[in-house]
């Protein structure tokens, strides 16, 4: 099937939480075919390279296949945590959108939910 390199935002959603200087970000596929690709390609190394500039030292990935979900636990990502960070977003709540934007994957049409604006990309690219 044709694939286009797209942000993982096309096929998954995410939420960020914080505990101390550790960010956890879930990545949840909308569809089973989306789960397959994030399961394969959303590795700890891939996530670490996305958050390295924020100071992350380590990423651990936990899998919940029943829920089509991955959970990334990212150490030292928050500039010291909500009480010490100098950043505008001290909790790192916006980091989920950073992940959805930066993780680029080869996406096929069947991974994208119906009515998603991303489906237009496949018509245009034809």
């Amino acid at each position, binding site marked *: 099937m044709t694939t286009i390199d797209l942000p993982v935002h096309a096929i998954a959603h995410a939420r960020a939480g914080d505990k101390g200087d550790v960010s956890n970000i879930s990545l949840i596929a909308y569809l089973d075919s989306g789960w397959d690709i994030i399961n394969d390609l959303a590795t700890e190394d891939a996530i670490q390279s996305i958050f390295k500039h924020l100071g992350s030292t380590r990423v651990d990935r936990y899998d919940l296949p029943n829920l089509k979900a991955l959970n990334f636990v990212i150490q030292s990502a928050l500039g010291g945590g909500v009480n010490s960070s100098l950043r*505008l977003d001290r909790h790192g709540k916006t980091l989920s959108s950073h992940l959805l934007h930066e993780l680029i994957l080869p996406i096929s049409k069947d991974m994208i939910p119906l009515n998603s604006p991303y489906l237009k990309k496949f018509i245009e690219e034809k």
Partner: protein
Amino acid sequence: MSKKVYIGCGAGFAGDRFDASIPIVKQLVNVNAPKYLIFEVLAERTLALAQQLRNKNSEEGYSPFLDSYINPILEDCLENNIKIVSNIGAANPMGAAKRILEIAEKQKIRKPKIGVVIGDDLLAYMSNSEILESPTMEGLDFSNNEITAANVYLGAQPIADALEKGADIVIVGRSVDSALVLGPLIYEYKWKPNELNLMASGTICGHLLECGAQVTGAYFADPGYKDVPDLANVGFPIAEVNEDGSFVITKPDGTGGLVNKATVTEQLLYETHNPSSYLVPDVTADMSALSLENDGVNRILVKGANGKEPPKQLKATICCDNGFMGEAEISYAGLNALARARLAGDVIDQRIQKIGLQGQMRIEIIGAGSVHYSIDETSSYNLPNDGDYRVRTSAIYPHREQAQQMVDEVISLYCCGPSAGGGGRAYVTPQTSTASILVDREIVDPNVQVKII
């Protein structure tokens, strides 16, 4: 008909909407089953601030929002057997209980029986050095700073005990948030501490409710991708819990928001690290075999929680003062705005060095990916040179005067900075540092009491 316990959450953080509980109470009034309303209103910093208030006045130190949460719903709850469980006790649970009695009297409603859980305040029975010698999980070096608050996370049993003693309302200080839900379930269903799968079910239910509307469509909407109906009127959650530990997450009729597998999964993993090992005082909960099923519109049935032995020690948060943050901003917009913003950042950097303020300072440009990048980093956004950009500077200093000096430099850009800088703002705020430690149960347990007033 199988028995169910209904638990609604009217607040998920300190300062959550004061009217969120009203649709929940309206719905629960018509329910003929055990029913509860919880308010979770404590963040880490909240306790440190509350402790300082109590140090100045022994009647104070409970949540400053207590009246706002309790006033709208106290009468309806007491008249309809809806029990209230909350950590609005903060640093003074007994003070909170007394205030609620005052409110009841003022509203001319019956005097509620209030259970107060005491014992989370480590400063009441541990010395500073005993606290500092505990194994530190994460956090900073406190040896040079006075501890302003030290609170251990209590579990669900004291809340269940308070209900057993006939409380209409249970007030706690620091407890693990999910205990506000597990406590009532232990009481209603007589679950035993060694029934670990049930302890895990109640804990996971509590974890889903503890952030209020985050499970019912809040902190979720992404227009065009994840649409949420009527977000402004998002309904806060209600759980309907069965005796076997399975439960439905839903929300009151006539409210906005939505409940589906996506909203529930996002909240399940929120502030979770290893989902097989979610640690609370009552159990180590395992989410890995959970299943979510549709149970009707805006109803998700959750099953399959497993539990293992609880952790041997209890987690506590300790706080100390950490100086003052100076934070200041100024905007540049229109043609060539990004270049002016970058120049402003450069001027600030040089000025702070020149006046000799030591310490880490951050400069970022709001509108140029500031939440993901600082001014020195190359962002992957395509940034037009024309636009609307806001330079933000922040630093933490030991003394208030230093933070004031820093923000003054930013504000001086009105006159001394690039062309057309405007909308300057400056803030100096006291800072609190926190660390987590582990404490032996043998130290804590003898000090936990339930008092009824």
